[in-house]
Structure formats: structure tokens, C-alpha cells
């Protein structure tokens, strides 16, 4: 089975982000870039499916600027077989729908039996591309999946989706889109051999034209980024436990009106 994994390169959460001069994007200098954590669950799951079935191909795909190749390289080092880089300035302002349409065009060319995505990318935190990709393709989709098993003949995947109050389990006909939630697996670290091997694997550059797409204006645009409004300064309540606890409860009731 061929499995396509959509991954996004994002700033490491621990790095500071600063607003760039244009007021609507971030300063990219000094940022450590990583594969979005949920996407690592997706890559790991794809590799496990291939290993379990004893055959298949795992293709990592991203839409992003030149630097996003590094993220693809990480996926290849984990064990993906090859990668596709949708790398075109036409997509600089891509919103989730533009991204989903571009990924759908790649899916149509590649015709995988399964597409895995992350629950959400931790830069824009939209959690939308997977569902929109399924919608554009007209494929079934299961979100926030915690476990999955594909039947022997590769026709159906049994997927458990996390919902409020429990898990819902579905038989999902393939091909389908699955969105990985934390808890699905523990992603592996690339081995030295994997890292060396990744250098020889193919990363194909693709332009909008190759996908039969033009430069659509995005449906949602960011007009401005802002720093968080500062929180009022906090207060450390001193004194012995009994006194401190009394004062805390009094403050919560009378000052903060939080209880």
C-alpha cells in the first residue's frame, strides 16, 4: 500500500517568535524549525503500517518554502521512502483551503491508498487541512485517531477517534484521510544510518503549474499579528499555609470573583 503523509515545518515551540516588520508574519531569523509534532505521529504510523504489511511505500509531502526541505529530510531519515515538496512562491499566502487543494492535487497524481495528516499544525493551530483535504477529494476521513488497524486485504481501516467522553470506533473504507492525535504511537528517532540514507533519497520539487493549479487568492488572510495583552502582575501570597490559603480563597472570592 502506498501511504502519503502530509507534514508541515513549524517553529520549535520552545523558540521565541517575534513579529516581523510587515506586522503579519514572524521573524524567521534565529528560529529552530521542526516537523510539527502531530505530523511525526502520522509519519510513525505510516512506517508501522508498512512494516506490519511487509510492503508498501511511504511518501512524505509538504507545501512550504525552500527551508521546508529540512523537514522532509527528517521524515526520510525516520524511514520514509521519498518526498514531494510543493515549493512555489504562488503559495506564500496559502490558507488551509489552498493548502488542502494543493495536497489534493498531489494525492490525485500519486493515488495512495491512505493519507495521514496531523491533528493540527502547531504554528497556525488550525486543525483544518485534514478535513478540508478529505472534503476536496470526496474521501472519508477520521479525525483525532488514537488507534488504527488496516484489514489484510487493504480495503478498510478500523480507526478509533477521540471524542468528548470516550472513543468512537469506525470502519473506514480506503482510500481515506486519517488525522493523528497524540497517543497514537511514540515516534522513533532517526538512526545514524537513517540520516545517512536520507541524503540519497529523492525529494521532488513541484510547482503550482505541475499540479494544474493557479495562484488563487487565499480565502482567509492574516491582516495583523499582535503580542498578547500583558496579564496584570501576579501576587505571591506569603505566610504560613493556613494564612496563605485563607487569603487565597478570600482573594478568589472578593477580588477576582472567580469562585
Amino acid at each position: 500500500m502506498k501511504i502519503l503523509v502530509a507534514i508541515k515545518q513549524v517553529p520549535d515551540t520552545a523558540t521565541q517568535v517575534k513579529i516581523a516588520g510587515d506586522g503579519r508574519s514572524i521573524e524567521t531569523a534565529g528560529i529552530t524549525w521542526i516537523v510539527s509534532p502531530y505530523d511525526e505521529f502520522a509519519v510513525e504510523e505510516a512506517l508501522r503500517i508498512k512494516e506490519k504489511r511487509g510492503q508498501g511505500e511511504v511518501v512524505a509531502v509538504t507545501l512550504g518554502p525552500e527551508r521546508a526541505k529540512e523537514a522532509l529530510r527528517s521524515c526520510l531519515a525516520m524511514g520514509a521512502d521519498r518526498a514531494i515538496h510543493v515549493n512555489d512562491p504562488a503559495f506564500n499566502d496559502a490558507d488551509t483551503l489552498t493548502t488542502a487543494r494543493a495536497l489534493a492535487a498531489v494525492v490525485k497524481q500519486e493515488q495512495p491508498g491512505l493519507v495521514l495528516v496531523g491533528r493540527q499544525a502547531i504554528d497556525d493551530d488550525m486543525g483544518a487541512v485534514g478535513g478540508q483535504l478529505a472534503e476536496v477529494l470526496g474521501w472519508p476521513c477520521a479525525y483525532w485517531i488514537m488507534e488504527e488497524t488496516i484489514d489484510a486485504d487493504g480495503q478498510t481501516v478500523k480507526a478509533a477517534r477521540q471524542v468528548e467522553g470516550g472513543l468512537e470506533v469506525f470502519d473506514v473504507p480506503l482510500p481515506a484521510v486519517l488525522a493523528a492525535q497524540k497517543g497514537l504511537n511514540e515516534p522513533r528517532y532517526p538512526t545514524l544510518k537513517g540520516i545517512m540514507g536520507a541524503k540519497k533519497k529523492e525529494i521532488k520539487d513541484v510547482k503550482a503549474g505541475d499540479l494544474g493549479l493557479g495562484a488563487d487568492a487565499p480565502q482567509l488572510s492574516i491582516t495583523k499579528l499582535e503580542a498578547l495583552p500583558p496579564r496584570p502582575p501576579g501576587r505571591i501570597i506569603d505566610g504560613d499555609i493556613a494564612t496563605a490559603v485563607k487569603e487565597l480563597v478570600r482573594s478568589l472570592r472578593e477580588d477576582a470573583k472567580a469562585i
Partner: protein
Amino acid sequence: MSKGETGMAGAFWTIVEDDRQGMPKKVMAEALGEAGRLSGGNVEAVWLTDKASDAGVKQLGEWGASKVWMVENAALAPYRGEVWAPIIAELAGKESPKAIFGPVTSRQRELLARVAARLGVGLCADAVGFAMEGDALVGTRPVYAGKLLSKVKWAKGPWVATLRPNVFRPADAGVAKTAQVEKPSVSIPDAKLKFVERREEAATGLPELTEAEIVISGGRGMKGPENYVILEAMGKVIGAAVGASRAAVDAGWRPHRFQIGQTGRTISPKLYLGFGVSGAIQHLAGMRTSKVIVAVNKDPEAPIFKIADYGIVADLFEVVPALTQEFKKLLET
């Protein structure tokens, strides 16, 4: 039925999240409240369910919905995107709402993304604020793990958005207000996903994490799974949900569904109480929009104190029982 004959054209729609027992959830008061303020009261509810009720319709009316578009059908449960999204898109195509809002829940996050894709319009997920700029809606949403806020605009309508729970002021319930029920004729697509089973979580007797007005969070400082009983005891007294940090979840002390943070649940309660949580950036990502933050940690340098409104530097095992007693005294008198 032709366009505009049955609904008010240009209404703000809210997609109903219900408790699967025929009642809309409390988050709907917030979605309807915000939609009402932005539209000057031109709000309608769209309720897809296998089980509606008159009490539920009455509740939606009291929260400000002038109309409830009701599609009640056994095929709608459990939620499946390929069934729900086309129905809402079809109805929106006929009735031309100005906006389509829904609360952030596990299913509406997917649903409204799909509806937006079907309609070919923008989606503002997990909004924490809205403003009208002239005739245009501007959404505000946290990005980069909540480190920045992003202002977004739609190229065209309907403006589709999901709203973070506990952020927007709920509608003031007006008992005199009633909603008119409209049962549109829509085609219900066949489900592709075949339902197998639902695995219910063990009931905690405490509110759901993402909806709770008060959340207690226990981190690695809790030292072991057996100690969460003291947090649950406090939770029972003040009606709080009990969550955890990733360190506690990864240690196997709490199931993943209780994890707060970037790779867990995003919460925005009126009151967050953290015990033995250091306040790592990824934890803050999931709780920094909480209104009031209390931290108890024995390390005065713990980063959580930087965003806490109230802090106590002490051993949590001494503070928790004393605090529970104090809450009891307050709430029982």
C-alpha cells in the same frame, strides 16, 4: 422554498452542539451570545441530531435563536463529516447566512473545516474574539502555541468560524424569547464510515475538561497516580475538572484525554489551579487564556508564577487539603 422566504437572509448561524440527550450544551449560550451581539440579534441555530427535544428548542430560543433549522434523523448519529457537512452546505446555499459559527469541540473542528471547504470560503478556527470593521468581520485567534494573536479576514462570506469555549460572554437567557422551528427538506448523504462501537470513558463525576469553568491541573509534582484523589476531592467541592501536564500523562499517571497543553486539550476556564506544574511553554499553550490563574509550586523560580495571578510557594501536599477545607467552608456557608 426560495431563498429568504423562510429564514432571515444574512442571519448569523450557530451549529448546535448537544449532549446526545436532546439538550444543547452550555457552550451554545456563548456561541449564540457572540453571534447575537455581532449581528444585532439576527441569530439562528442549525440543529443536526438524532434526538432533539422541545426543551432543547426552548433553550436555544432563550439564548437568542429566532429560528431553529432542525434536521432530526437517526442517520446523523454518531457524527460523521461526510454526512453532516453536505447538509449544512446545502442549507447555507439556499439560505445565505452571513456567518456560520460553532463551538470548538472535537467534531465541530472538523465539521466547520469541511463546510468551509465545501462552500469555498475561509475558516477561522478556535477564535477568541471578533469585531465588525465596517461591513467586514475580523476574527482574532491564538497562533504559535498562544504566543501571538492573529487577526484574520475573509475574502467572502459566509464567515465560518469555531469559537473557543469559556471565552465569549454567554447570552443572557430571556425566558420570553422563543425560537420558531423550521424543518427544511435536505438530502441526507449516505455514511461512508461504518460505526462499530463507542468506548465510554469511566465517569469521573466531574465536569468535562474543555467545558469546565474551573480546572485543577496536577503536574509531575503530584509524585504518582494515587495522589490525584486529593485533587478530585477538591474538584468535587468546587465543581472543577481535573487535568494534568504532559509529564504526568507520559508517566502513565493520567490518561491522555486529561492532558492540558499543546499536544493535549486547550482550556480556557474562569479559574485554573495548577499544582506541581512548572509552567512549560507547551503547557501554557493550552491554558494561558484562562481568566484567573493560581499556581502552587515549591520552587519560587517556576515559570508558571510569571503568568499566575496568585501564587503560593509551598509543598502542594500541605496546601491542597487546607485549600479544600477552606473552599468547603466558603461554599457551605
